[in-house]
C-alpha cells in the first residue's frame, strides 16, 4: 500500500524545530485572547484537538475514519447532559463526555477494524450516520433544539468558568496537555509500531505484532481525544447540537487535517485555525461555505497534499 502521508526528509539530531514550534504555540495562545475573541480561539482550540485526534489515525496508522463526528458529537451531548441535568461539576461532565467517546470508539473500532482501506472509511461513516439518526430521535439529545443553556459551572468548585478568561485558560491548558499527550504517543515505542503498520502492515504482522490490537488501541485513543474536544466545546458554547454529530462535521475534521498537513504534529492545529477563521469570515456568504469547503478539498488533494505545515517542514527540511 502506498504511503498516505507524504514523507518528509528528517534530520533526527535536531528536534529543536518541534520545541520552537511548541514555544511559538504557547506564546500565541497566551497573547491570543488579548487580540482575538476568546470564544473564537476556544472554538479553534477545540477543533484543533479534534483534528489532532483524527490525525493520530490518518497520519500515523493510515486509517481514514470518515465518522469522527460520532465521538465528538456524542461526547458533547453527554457532557452537556451531565452538566445540565445531573448538575455535575464541569471537570466531571468533561470526564463523562470523554468516557462516552472512549466507549463509542471501542464499539465502533471493534466493528470497523475488520475491514481495511476504503471499506474502513465507509463503515465508520455508516456507523456515525446510524448514531446521528439515533440522536435525531432520542429525547435526551433534544432533537433539533439540542441541549441549550448548559451551565459552565465552577471548576473543582473553586474557579468560576463563567468568567471568559478563566474559561479560556482552562481550555488552553487542557488542550495543550492533550497535544503533549498525543506527541508522546506518537514518539513512544507504541507510536513506532503504529507507523510500521502504516508503512507496511503485512511486514508488521510478520514481525509478530498483533496489528489489529494496535489499531484498536489507536482508534480508541483517537475517539477518546475527539470526545474530550467535543466535551470542551459543549461547555464553551453551552450547547450540544445535531451539527456536531452530522457527517459534515466528520468531513470538516478531514478538511482541517488535510489543509494543515496529514501526519505532521502541528498541521491539524494550523488547519483547524485556518478553517475556523475561514468559516467565520465567510459566515455572511451563507451557502457558499459548502462550495468553498469543497473547492479547498479539491485543491488540496490535487496540488497541496502536504498541507501548510507539511509544505513548510519540507522547505525547511525539519520535522514539524
Amino acid at each position: 500500500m502506498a504511503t498516505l502521508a507524504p514523507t518528509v526528509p528528517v534530520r533526527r539530531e535536531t528536534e529543536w524545530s518541534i520545541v520552537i514550534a511548541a514555544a511559538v504555540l504557547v506564546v500565541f495562545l497566551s497573547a491570543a485572547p488579548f487580540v482575538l475573541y476568546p470564544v473564537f480561539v476556544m472554538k479553534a482550540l477545540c477543533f484543533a484537538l479534534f483534528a489532532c485526534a483524527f490525525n493520530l489515525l490518518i497520519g500515523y496508522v493510515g486509517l481514514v475514519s470518515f465518522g469522527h463526528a460520532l465521538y465528538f458529537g456524542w461526547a458533547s451531548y453527554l457532557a452537556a447532559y451531565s452538566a445540565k441535568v445531573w448538575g455535575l461539576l464541569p471537570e466531571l461532565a468533561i470526564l463523562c463526555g470523554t468516557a462516552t467517546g472512549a466507549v463509542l470508539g471501542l464499539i465502533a473500532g471493534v466493528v470497523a477494524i475488520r475491514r481495511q482501506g476504503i471499506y474502513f472509511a465507509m463503515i465508520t461513516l455508516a456507523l456515525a450516520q446510524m448514531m446521528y439518526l439515533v440522536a435525531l430521535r432520542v429525547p435526551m439529545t433534544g432533537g433539533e433544539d439540542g441541549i441549550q443553556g448548559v451551565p459552565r459551572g465552577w471548576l473543582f468548585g473553586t474557579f468560576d468558568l463563567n468568567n471568559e478568561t478563566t474559561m479560556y485558560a482552562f481550555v488552553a491548558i487542557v488542550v495543550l496537555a492533550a497535544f503533549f499527550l498525543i506527541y508522546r504517543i506518537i514518539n513512544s515505542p507504541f507510536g513506532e509500531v503504529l507507523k510500521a503498520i502504516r508503512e507496511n502492515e503485512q511486514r508488521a504482522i510478520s514481525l509478530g505484532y498483533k496489528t489489529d490490537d494496535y489499531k484498536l488501541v489507536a482508534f480508541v485513543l483517537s475517539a477518546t481525544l475527539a470526545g474530550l474536544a467535543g466535551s470542551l466545546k459543549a461547555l464553551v458554547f453551552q450547547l450540544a447540537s445535531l451539527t456536531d454529530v452530522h457527517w459534515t462535521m466528520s468531513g470538516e475534521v478531514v478538511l482541517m487535517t488535510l489543509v494543515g498537513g496529514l501526519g505532521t504534529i502541528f498541521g491539524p492545529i494550523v488547519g483547524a485555525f485556518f478553517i475556523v477563521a475561514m468559516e467565520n469570515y465567510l459566515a455572511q456568504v451563507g451557502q457558499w461555505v459548502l462550495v468553498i469547503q469543497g473547492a479547498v478539498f479539491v485543491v488540496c488533494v490535487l496540488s497541496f497534499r502536504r498541507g501548510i505545515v507539511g509544505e513548510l517542514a519540507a522547505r525547511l527540511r525539519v520535522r514539524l
Partner: protein
Amino acid sequence: MFEIFGVPSQALFGQLLLGLINGSFYALLSLGLAVIFGMLNIINFSHGAQYMMGAFVAFILLRNVGIGYWPALIVVPIVVGATGVVIERLFLRRLQKLDHLYGLILTFGLALIIEGLFRNYYGSSGQPYGVPESLQGGRNLGFMFLPNYRAWVIAFSLFVCIGTWYGIERTRLGSYLRAATENPALVRAFGINVPRMVTLTYGFGVGLAGLAGVMAAPIYNVSPQMGSDIIIVVFAVVVIGGMGSIMGAIVTGFALGIVEGLTKVFFPEASNTVIFMIMIIVLLIRPAGLFGRGA
C-alpha cells in the same frame, strides 16, 4: 382486507412496495459504485450528489425547457455522465498513482461543491416533480393498490440492473472491462485504449446515478440533500454486499430495501437504522461481506 401477523395486508404490502422502490435505488446506486470501484479503485463519494443532479436536471428540463419525463430519461443520464467524463479527465486521472483514499477525499469535496451549488440556487426545501401523465393512476390488485409509476420504477430499474450485469459479464466489451480491472498493463499491450475505457466507465457509473435521480424525482421531492441522505445508506449496502460482484450489488440492494420496508411495519422506530445494524452483524460474522472476496 386480511391480516398477516396482526398487520393489515394493505399496510404490509404498501410498505413492501416502498421497500422495493428504495431497494431499486440502492441497487442502481451500489451497482454504479461497484462498476466505478472495479475500474478506477475509487469510492465515488459524489455518487449521491450526482444522483441528486440527475433529479435536478430533469426538474430544470421540465420547468425551463419544457422537456418532459420520457425524453429526460435519456437526456439526463447523458448530461450527468458527461459531467462525469469531465471530472475523470480533469481530476481523477491525476490520482491514479496515489493512495485511493485521496480519491475518496476528492470526490467528497466534489459532492460538497455540487450540493452547495444547488442549495444556492434552489434552497434546501424540496421541489415537486409530477408523475408523467402516461403513468398516473394505478390498479387494484385485490390485496393492495399498486400505483403505475411505482410498478414502472421497479420494473425499469430491474431491467437496467440486469442489462448492466449482462453487458459486463456476457459481452465482448464487458470482457475487456473485466480484463482491464485485473491487469490494465496487459490489456493495453493488446492495443486496447484503457485510459479511455476508464473515463467511459466513470461516465457510465455516474450516468447510472443520474438515471436513478430522474426515476426518483416523481417519488421523492427534488432537493439538494436527497443525495447525501441516500449515499451513506448505499455505502452500508456496499459494505454488506461487498463490491466484488455486480450481481451481488444488485441482489443486496433489492433485498435490503425489502428488509427496510418490513422493518417499517414491525418495528417502525428501527426502520432507518436497520441497514446499519445489518451491516454491523455482517461485519461481525462475515467481515468480507456477503459476496465479497477478501478485504
